[in-house]
């Protein structure tokens, strides 16, 4: 693999979303949703919880979705999807892919209980968290997915986010579910490969996609892919898979760059001092080292 950067491998198939969503220009979420649906195909039903994902989907009588799409209550995507899958099974339609589509708030925070319940039961759904690292559709409030040092409207410049981002993949790994992966909109081949792989597995599958957000991260809309790529290259958001909660596999990412390159490109990190940045670099290096150890512990090959 060449790090997923080659667009030649990116086969355009039937689009499963309509153009004209309510998303902001440069929205990473819409790119992710498009790829995820393309990889899953038409035989899919989507449950989405409150968040950008539900807002951008359009207002009656319009919708962006060409597949069945239900807006569930905030924080219940996993349970609703589990019920839907159980219903499909009982109706003899067990082959339908059920996708729970939730943001970081709907996953890390208000949805964590329902997510943990469905994961622990190993309910047969694909849960994708599109992570834009804050409550973006309500106007950029911090979530437990907000990274250390970030500005949001509830972590203003005088009091920037002072806790590390919750390690949701580690929490999910503790559930020993068959498949976990991180993915990026800047690595579409890798993303689609992981979704297709997840599709072929039975049980609870969790995909964590970092979706850069120009509105909340404060960068020009044209930079979404570039910023998504530097998140991966800097290893602040490394790409990997976890099989059965134990076997870690690193995905191809390209040569490591400094975290500063990622941070300086976004207004939300403007309040950081050099000392803060080197602290974040240390934390990133620590996590990256840990991940490499975990991957080396298994066979680590891919």
């Amino acid at each position, binding site marked *: 693999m060449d790090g997923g950067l080659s667009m030649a491998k990116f086969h355009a198939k039937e689009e499963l979303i309509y153009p004209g969503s309510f998303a902001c220009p440069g929205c990473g979420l819409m790119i992710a949703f498009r790829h995820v649906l393309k990889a899953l195909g038409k035989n899919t039903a989507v449950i989405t919880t409150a968040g950008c994902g539900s807002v951008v989907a359009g*207002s*009656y009588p319009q919708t962006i*979705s060409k597949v069945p799409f239900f807006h*569930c209550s905030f924080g219940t995507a996993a*349970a*609703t999807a589990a019920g839907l899958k159980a219903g499909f099974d*009982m109706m003899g339609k067990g082959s339908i892919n059920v996708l729970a589509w939730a943001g970081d708030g709907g996953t890390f925070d208000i949805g964590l209980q329902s997510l*943990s*319940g469905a994961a622990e039961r190993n309910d047969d759904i694909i849960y994708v968290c599109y992570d834009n690292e804050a409550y973006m559709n309500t106007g950029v409030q911090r979530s437990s997915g907000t990274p250390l040092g970030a500005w949001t409207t509830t972590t203003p410049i005088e009091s920037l986010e002072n806790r590390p981002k919750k390690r949701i993949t580690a929490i999910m790994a503790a559930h020993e579910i068959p498949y976990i992966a991180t993915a990026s909109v800047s690595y579409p081949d890798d993303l689609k490969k992981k979704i297709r792989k997840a599709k072929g597995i039975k049980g609870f599958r969790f995909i964590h996609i970092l979706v850069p957000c120009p509105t909340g991260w404060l960068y020009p809309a044209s930079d979404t892919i570039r910023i998504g790529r530097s998140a991966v290259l800097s290893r602040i958001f490394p790409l990997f898979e976890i099989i059965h909660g134990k076997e870690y596999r690193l995905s191809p990412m390209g040569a490591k760059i400094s975290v500063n390159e990622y941070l300086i490109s976004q207004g939300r990190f403007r309040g950081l001092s050099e000392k803060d940045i080197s602290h974040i670099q240390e934390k990133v290096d620590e996590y990256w080292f840990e991940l490499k150890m975990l991957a080396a512990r298994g066979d680590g090959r891919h």
Partner: protein
Amino acid sequence: MTGNDAAAMAAKMAKPQVVAAYPITPQTSIAEKLASYVARGELNAHYIKVESETSALAACIGGSLAGARVFTATSSQGLALMHELLHWASGARLPVVIVNVNRSMAAPWSLGIDHNDSLSQRDTGCIQMYCETAQEALDNILIAFKLAEKTLMPTMICMDGFLLSHYSEPVDIPDQADVDRFLPPRKAKYKMDPKNPFTFGGGVSPTVLFGLRKRIQDDMDHALSHFQKICGQFYRYFKRRYRAVEPFDTKGKEIALITNGTLSGTARAFVEQAGKEKGVGLIKIRLFRPFPRRELTMALKGLKKAVVIDRNLSPGSGGIFSQEIRAVLYETGQKIPVISAIGGIGGVDVTIEDLDRLVQRVREGGNLTGETIWMGD
């Protein structure tokens, strides 16, 4: 069998395809029974062992979206936890059937029965029925599935905790074949289907929402006639007749005791014993939402006083049933005094003697309109 056994039996006979429940006293034995029916292959369903009541109802909503028949049961705090999802189920027009085994709301903790848990859900758009006996619990649940699927409204069957859920009574169990004929498999007109994709529940304009709310009200109004029709069908199959409002021995009487739930049994015994002497009859309300205005007005015709016993309290206002009944009588111009009595909250026993004292007080008390009598006070 106990009320909970009857409820679990009814749920099994209705053949739900997705069941999701979370343990809570005094509902738990319904969830246990259903789990064992599924485990033993007596019920062909997915039983989702959820981690909360929120997820229980969310999973039922999901199952219902697939077109499946769904069931859950809960009590008290669990029902309160479902509150948001009850709005979701009714707004999405999903025929979820919920058994609520009534229990007081904390704080402080109590296992006693009152109806504040289900009445707190009054405005969610959920059909509500109350049961006097274990037989009614079984029958109401079968009726509920048919009514929910006909009206596309979630339907809740309320059973008094312990007094009904845990006491054993003789129950006539219908033949499965009759139940199958009375309640054929659900045919969902709208469902999630990749072959015919729709988006459900997305943003709407104020005008659209306004129209949808009016539609719910219209359909709730129609639900009353569907209820009557379904009860008629039920009678043809099972020879037990049910009505939204059930008067008992009110002819020629002056006072009507108005009750719901198991208290109706005690009131019935009181009326049998002393009704003639004290001029008292009974009106039992089975269906609370939609509120059976016309049936209630008819039942009260010729009576001089209505004494409503509320096993609930809306603090700052009073008994909920009495408010509803006053509103109906004001509308229809039936100017009889409605005396509100609060009794049995927290599972306090309401005995025949208590009823006797209440009636005595009403007979001697002159105009008690607008006052609230606390039974046992």
